[in-house]
Structures are given as C-alpha cells and as structure tokens.
C-alpha cells in the first residue's frame, strides 16, 4: 500500500512536468494549428541558459527567472522568424520546419555547451517528506513543481477568460479572419501565444532538469510524454493538457513501479494508441461542432 501511495505521489510530481510540456504544445496548437516538435529543443536551450547562470555563481532563482524570460523571448523570435513564413501553408511544411529547428537547436547547444550532461540543482530539497516513519516519494521540490504548474494554469486561465488580451488571443486562434475584421492584430496574438507556450516549456525544462541532467538530447523523452499528455487532453484545452499530464504521470509511474522502468516509454505509446483508438478527440475536446 505504501508503495502504491509512493508511486501515486511520484506520478503526480512527474505529471506536473508533463503537464507544463503539454501546455506548451496545446497553446501553440490552439493558436496556430502547428505541433511544435522543436519544443524539446527550445526548453533545452533555455534550461542551458539557466544552467550557465547558476554555473557562473548566480542563485537558483536568477537562473529560474532567466529560463522563463529567455523562453518568452525565444518563443516570440521563433514564431516571427521561422514559423511566420509557413503559417497558412500545408501542415506538413510546419512539421518539417519544427523538426528542422529541433535538430538545429540541438546542434547549436552541442557546439556551445558540449554533449556531456551537466547536473542541475532542484529548487528545494529532493529528500522526500517523512510521514509516520516512512520517507514518501514526494519532496519539497516536487511540491514546488506541482504548485507552480497549477499556478501557471490558473494564471493562463485568468488571462484567457478575464482579460481583453485573452479574448483577442482566443478570437485570433478560433477565427483569424473574423478577428482581423474586428481590428485584432492576429499576427501579434500568435507571437504572444508562442511566447507564452515557450515559457511554459521552459518551466518544464527547469523542473525536469534535476532528474534528467542537462544535455542537448536529454529532454526528448519529456517531449514524448508531454505530447502524449496533450493528445490525451484533446490538444485544444489548457485544463485538458494539465489533466492529461497528471494522468500520464500516474500511469507511467505505475508502469515503472510495477512493470519496470525499462518499459515506461512503451507505456506512453500504449496510452497514445489507446486514446487514438477509443477517443481520438481526447478527453477534453470541445463539444462544440465547428461551423461549416
């Protein structure tokens, strides 16, 4: 029983990270109908930036802030420079462009920081809480991860639901042409969407970095799990992404705990296939039929 509780807590902690990655994919998919495969590379770069700062003696929180800030900037730059030319083009163009960007970012990171993995400090202690003589598989660092991802979801929801910027962003995502006719600068909304999405990815990067170390390729699996979470959540809805993230985190934690860590990736694949077979629109797909 304690093992089940441990695996559950561990699943929630990992799920928060997958949720942040899923959020970054969902925000971009919603805004521009592009699956951003480069996300793994983008969050790797911003995590490296944080690592460099910390390595040069800056405090953890300076590195943390730098990661989020550089995520915002990187997202906006990528949208303006790389994605803008393929918006409205056949979807395959964007897929190729984001894959190409992933390869480019990983190569650049290798040139700057080398291929060796670097350790990355956690925000707080990674020693599990002690509850009744048992050290649970859930640490202050995990708690921080869960709380900050939840906080980000709340902030994004408030932005989308309560502000006029959020209203403009939703309009631009759902009906770009109509939004333009109402005076919305649709291009700017896409840039802001990419910037926010990239920031969510950067958050996932610094949260997961203590577990996977920082190297050009260590974040690839996080993208796979985050993508599974996003599909599970329906690709459209930020709360869906977070629920999907937690479900994937839990499922993979049980798979890892009861069946062995070596089949975890297979578990993610199984979830993906099951979702696509049973409910291809995901758990949180909007019920609204799109207008014809």
């Amino acid at each position, binding site marked *: 029983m304690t093992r089940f509780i441990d695996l559950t807590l561990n699943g929630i902690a990992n799920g928060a990270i997958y949720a942040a990655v899923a959020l970054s994919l969902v925000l971009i998919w919603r805004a521009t109908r592009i699956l951003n495969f480069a996300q793994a590379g983008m969050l790797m770069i911003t995590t490296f930036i944080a690592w460099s700062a910390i390595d040069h003696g800056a405090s953890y929180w300076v590195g943390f802030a730098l990661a989020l800030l550089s995520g915002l900037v990187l997202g906006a730059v990528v949208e303006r420079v790389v994605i803008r030319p393929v918006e409205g083009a056949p979807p395959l163009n964007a897929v190729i462009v984001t894959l190409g960007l992933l390869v480019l970012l990983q190569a650049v990171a290798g040139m700057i920081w080398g291929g060796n993995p670097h350790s990355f400090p956690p925000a707080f202690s990674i020693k599990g809480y002690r509850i009744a003589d048992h050290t649970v598989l859930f640490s202050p660092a995990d708690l921080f991860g869960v709380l900050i991802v939840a906080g980000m979801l709340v902030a994004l929801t408030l932005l989308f639901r309560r502000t006029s910027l959020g*209203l403009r962003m939703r309009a631009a995502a759902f*009906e770009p042409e109509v939004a333009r*006719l*109402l005076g919305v600068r649709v291009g700017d909304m896409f840039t802001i969407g990419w910037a926010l999405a990239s920031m969510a990815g950067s958050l996932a990067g610094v949260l997961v970095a203590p577990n996977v170390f920082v190297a050009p390729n260590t974040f690839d699996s996080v993208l796979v799990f985050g993508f599974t979470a996003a599909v599970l959540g329906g690709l459209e809805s930020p709360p869906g992404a977070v629920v999907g993230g937690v479900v994937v985190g839990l499922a993979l934690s049980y798979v890892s705990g009861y069946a062995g860590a070596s089949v975890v990736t297979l578990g993610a694949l199984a979830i993906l296939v099951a979702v696509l077979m049973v409910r291809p629109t995901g758990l949180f797909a909007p019920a*609204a039929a799109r207008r014809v």
Partner: protein
Amino acid sequence: MLEVEDLEIAYGPVRALRGVSFAVPKATITAVLGANGAGKTSLLRTLSGLVRARSGRIWLDGRDIRRAPIEQIVRRGMAHVPEGRRVIAELSVEENLRLGGLLRGRGGRGGLDEMYALFPPLAERRAQPAHTLSGGERQMLAIGRALMARPRVLLLDEPSLGLAPRVAAQIMGLLPRLRDESGLTVLLVEQNAKGALSVADHGIVLNLGRVVASGTPHALSADDALRHAYLGF
C-alpha cells in the same frame, strides 16, 4: 462617404472585378445584386482589405484605403459582416460582442446594453456559447458584433441566406432603422433581390465582375429585362 473607382481584382488569372465604379452616399442603403459568381462577395472582401485590389481606388471619407492594413480600415469605420455570419462558436454571445467593441475601448456595459436592446434574443443568451444560437440569432450576433465598433459603413454579405423568411425580413427591416437613427451607411450584398430592394435607397447590379445596371430600387424593379436576366423575380 464610400467611393469605388475603376476597381480591378483577380484571383490568379481569373478576374473577379473589372472596372467597378460606384459611390455610396452617407446614411443610405445600397443593395449590391447579382447571381452567384458575379463578384459581390469579392467586392466586399476588397473593401474591407481581406482581398487586395490589383488596381483602382477605394475612397472612405475622401481617403484612399486601397493599400491600408485591415486594422486601419476597421479603425476608420468600416465594418464587414462576412458571408455565413461567422460568429465565433467557442466564445459566448457576450464575448463575441465585447470582441467587436475592443477596438473602440467599448467592452463596457454601454455598448452591450445597446446591442441587447436592439437584439432582445441575444440578451437572454448572453452567457451561452455562440454555437447554441439559431441561424437568425447568429446573424443578429454577427451584426451586433460589427456595430459594437461604432462603424460608419457596414458591409453586409448575404444576411438573409438560409434564414426563415420572417427572420430575414426582421433583419432587413432593421437596416433602415440603423440608417435613420445613427446615420449608418450600408452596403448590402444579397441574392434575395426583392428583399434587398425593399429596404435599399439605391441598387447596383453586378454580372461577371462588371456593373451592368445601377439605379433606384423602383427603376431596377421596373426594368423587366434586367429583372429576368439578373435579379430572378
């Protein structure tokens, strides 16, 4: 108010408008009539900036807006209600309306209350997502959303398409009221020529991208050949 001079547009080799010229005086309703493919929708899309003209001029209040970006055209007072209503299905009725008012900083109660008074069915459904609305309500929402921007020129594309005759008549009947009460200038594209001419002050008939007739509703209706050839009644 709105003046179009020798407007030419083309989609690749296909010329959609050829030398179209006309003028729409302030606070009048002009009906643009013609069969499918005559260029009516293309004309509206060019006026609002969605489609770029190959040549010609579009004067709004004495300024040429042919090359202006859409946001600027909208800010100058042009509102376009596109074909098919195009309410944003995922947003609530009120969010759709507020979106229309954002560019005037009019998300506030004043503008909304005005629209709810103009379209009472929308008031009852303000919190519902727009995809739950009937066709007539969607058209009301699309027009209300455009009016939230306090436009001076309203471009309406096929507002009565697919609506029950009674609902279509209701929406057409609103146009003279808007013209008289707020001095709105309306360019109304319709296939329902009879309905459009019943509220219009002026009519122009397009065929294959050219203006083939122009005149008062009375004169256009009285021309039997024109009626049979282009207006279908």
